[in-house]
């Protein structure tokens, strides 16, 4: 039986290594729900048992049911019918039904709406597991943030109307944000929202590139204040498909063929407002996007894992020059890099998800149940602020790192397979096509860097790494920690230099700055894994067959930390040097360097 949770010992290791108990305690509000809901856990141990049972069951569904259908889903795609309805690929429609039966479509929604009330940390694991089976399906399973946004900001009436159906898997949603002239810059959204004399809201205009736009619950960003340009003129609305919602076109895409990308024309569509006017973009969509970015990081992890496995298997069995090609140094190095980068991405994503759970949990406690004791209240406020800052930096970092990593890994997966990898006989070409969108949607890598570099240069990164450095580590990684501390000092130098040069320069060299910070954070996370208390043996495979040998995961992680950190140290030096070189030719010599715009 294929099971994408059980066959992945890194996810299982991290499940035990990371602090799930605190996430559980915060989500379950100190286990207050156990009396009211017979499935709600009574303590952290039970919550963790629940998480693992659900991941196990989802792992089975993904391995046995979803993955075998992913190839035909990719070939089939979606069809826009003459009546404007969309027929999904058969495998996707079947999978949606099974996911509903598995009761996992309200993963993070509260118990009272039929959700599981699971932490984001566990949701990220689930998204990775599912995306490994079918990346396109993630755009339905992984966009539960739509329901989460309704839960966070809409009126009780709207919550009751939609959230039970989301949990039951009866409806799927879409984030209807992008327009032909408003992509990365959502402040330019034009779609009009207006009220009739009775105060009812309606939508009019066109939206483009809408993932799952044929879903049953549409969250639409629209201009409710016609006289006000920019983000403060926008509000968020919810509506359902009907005679006034016309899907005009399905995009013909490079990858994620199972996910319908729609152009939608709203022709005076009745709708309801979410929360307050003018907060649509600045508050609600920002929160929605943060969740979606973590989702895309998880999707990237799943695609990379799937592509790596094909390459690993092929390299062990394909013989050239009378040996398995994995014996060749160049191939061997590629595979090691792929594997380490995947585990680095996973470490970063899970850490980010953990921080987000704390951020949301502390904010919720502050809002609904603030402690009366003054010092306790202050502590809570400090925590809420600290994790909010950390999450605002780590979220774009994860999205950026995991999606770029996933593109490298899928590219190299094809490379390991050579000519065979280029053919459609192997799934790695599909993974490479699916991977390509991850650095683009929900904010391009360039925008993630802009968001993350603010955190890197404002002291958040330094504080965060300072806390990581204070944790308990084993003596074996002491020299590695010293290297990381040196790297941190060099990063500080670069930041100081950049700050003198101004914001434009900071954005020009944002990428190396963020890269350095991520390398250092991942380095600490690996050192933490190498100092784990979790006892777990992992098999060491020889040419694809277990030869009975196994080593402790802790030992393996120590090797991995060593390789990762020593490999990065000279790269960090080079990046610091590059940042501090002061080259501004991108501003001064742009026209000469790129040449004229090509004519007809």
């Amino acid at each position, binding site marked *: 039986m294929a099971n994408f949770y059980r066959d992945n010992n890194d996810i299982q290791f991290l499940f035990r290594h990371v602090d799930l108990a605190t996430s559980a305690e915060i989500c379950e509000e100190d286990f207050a729900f156990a009396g009211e809901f*017979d*499935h*709600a*856990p009574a303590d952290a141990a039970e919550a963790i*048992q*629940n998480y693992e*049972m*659900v991941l196990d*069951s*989802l792992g*089975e*569904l993904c391995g046995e*049911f979803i993955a075998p259908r992913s190839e035909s889903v990719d070939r089939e795609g979606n069809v826009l019918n003459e009546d404007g309805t969309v027929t999904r690929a058969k495998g996707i429609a*079947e999978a949606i039904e*099974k996911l509903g*039966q*598995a*009761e*996992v479509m309200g993963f993070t929604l509260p118990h009272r709406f*039929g959700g*599981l009330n699971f932490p984001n940390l566990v949701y990220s694991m689930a998204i990775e597991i599912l995306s490994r089976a079918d990346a396109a399906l993630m755009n339905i399973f992984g966009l539960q943030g739509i329901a989460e946004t309704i839960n966070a900001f809409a009126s009780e009436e709207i919550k009751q109307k939609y959230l039970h159906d989301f949990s039951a898997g009866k409806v799927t949603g879409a984030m209807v944000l992008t327009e032909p002239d408003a992509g990365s810059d959502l402040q330019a959204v034009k779609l009009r929202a207006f009220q009739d004399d009775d105060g009812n809201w309606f939508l009019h205009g066109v939206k483009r590139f809408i993932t799952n736009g044929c879903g049953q619950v549409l969250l639409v960003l629209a201009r409710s204040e016609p006289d006000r340009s920019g983000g403060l003129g926008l509000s968020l609305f919810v509506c359902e498909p009907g005679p006034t919602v016309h899907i005009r076109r399905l995009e013909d895409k490079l990858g994620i063929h199972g996910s319908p990308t729609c152009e939608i024309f709203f022709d005076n569509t009745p709708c309801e407002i979410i929360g307050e006017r003018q907060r649509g973009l600045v508050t609600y969509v920002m929160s929605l996007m943060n969740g979606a970015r973590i989702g895309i990081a998880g999707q990237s992890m799943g695609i990379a894992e799937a592509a790596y496995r094909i390459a690993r298997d092929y390299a062990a069995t394909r013989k050239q020059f009378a040996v398995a090609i994995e014996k060749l140094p160049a191939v061997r190095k590629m595979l090691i890099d792929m594997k380490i980068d995947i585990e680095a991405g996973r470490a970063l994503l899970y850490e980010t998800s953990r921080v987000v759970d704390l951020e949301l949990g502390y904010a919720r406690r502050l809002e609904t149940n603030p402690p009366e004791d003054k010092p306790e209240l202050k502590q809570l406020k400090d925590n809420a602020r600290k994790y909010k800052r950390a999450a605002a930096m780590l979220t774009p970092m994860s999205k950026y790192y995991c999606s770029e990593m996933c593109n490298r890994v899928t590219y190299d997966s094809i490379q390991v397979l050579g000519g065979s990898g280029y053919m459609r006989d192997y799934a790695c070409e599909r993974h490479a096509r699916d991977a390509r969108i991850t650095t683009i949607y929900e904010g391009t890598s360039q925008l993630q860097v802009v968001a993350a570099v603010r955190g890197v240069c404002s002291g958040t990164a330094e504080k965060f790494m300072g806390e990581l450095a204070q944790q308990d580590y084993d003596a074996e990684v002491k020299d590695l920690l010293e290297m990381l501390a040196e790297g941190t000092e060099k990063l500080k130098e670069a930041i100081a230099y950049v700050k003198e040069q101004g914001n434009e320069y900071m954005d020009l060299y944002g990428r190396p700055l963020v890269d350095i910070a991520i390398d250092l954070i991942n380095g600490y996370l690996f050192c933490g894994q190498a100092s784990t208390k979790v006892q777990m043996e992992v098999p060491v495979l020889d040419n694809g067959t277990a030869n009975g040998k196994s080593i402790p995961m802790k030992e393996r992680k120590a090797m991995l930390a060593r390789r990762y950190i020593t490999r990065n140290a000279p790269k960090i030096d080079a990046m610091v040097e590059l940042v501090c070189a002061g080259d501004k030719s991108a501003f001064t010599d742009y026209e000469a360097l790129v040449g004229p715009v090509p004519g007809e």
Partner: protein
Amino acid sequence: MGYNCVVLIKQVPDTKRITGDVMNDDGTVKRSALPAIFNPEDLNALELALQIKDKFGGHITVLTMGLPAASAMLRDALYRGADEAILITDRRCAASDTLATSYILSCAVKKIDFDIALCGRQAIDGDTAQVGPQLAEKLGVTQITYIEELTELEGRTITARRNIGNGWQQVKATLPVLLTVTGDANEPRVAAAKKMMKHKSALSPIEVEQKIRTENPDAGEVEIKELAELKCSKLIEKGLLMKQWDLDAVEADLNWCGQSGSPTKVHRIQSVVLAAKETRQIEPSEEGISGMIHELINDKVIA
């Protein structure tokens, strides 16, 4: 209006995992060395019952005869959506062949109000496919075996398509009926999250007793009984105590149960030696592949 379904399930050794290590010298299989699993086609039977419930409503009871360990499989059925689980366990059931098994099951099913009884086509340990049909006979209800598809269910009439080996046959019958379901009928759903979170603590009385004994190794019989009763009543409050019946509870005639009720005699056991044999290189060409395929068809390895 819904339909009440009773699904007969069996815990079996995972025969897909038979290797040399789990064989006895006499050619029989060491059952304990293999993981115990939900008989695959029984999952298809349960899935069909769940689909009927999803569409029309009703109540699903799962029933198994087996060792106390079979409780794990009953929990699995609850995770997937069964409403009630019953364990028939009794030492006097030991050594029952298909005749005795179907007799005992018929006594139990008679105690349940049902419209449709569902069984997997056959169990992967015995591969007899006899228990379902024998059970239908003993219950005196119509049987439709080898179901591939439930075509229609309307009022008291059921229409189903059955596999007859070289084709299919559409059968219409009046409820109550007993269906045996093939692996082609559907793809079983996985455990549902909230049902799993709730029912993971469900236990059968015999499991409660075993647990109390392990936790209180020094306790006397009276104390164990008291503690077990206390635990059971707590579980009942939460709806987490699975039902458990013995042969007295189902009012079975002991002459028809276990060894005495089992006329089957094993004629011969063929010892299968699992060993790697010669390998052959097939030319990677059209002719090579087509030659191999023909050979496999002639040997009836593939159809």
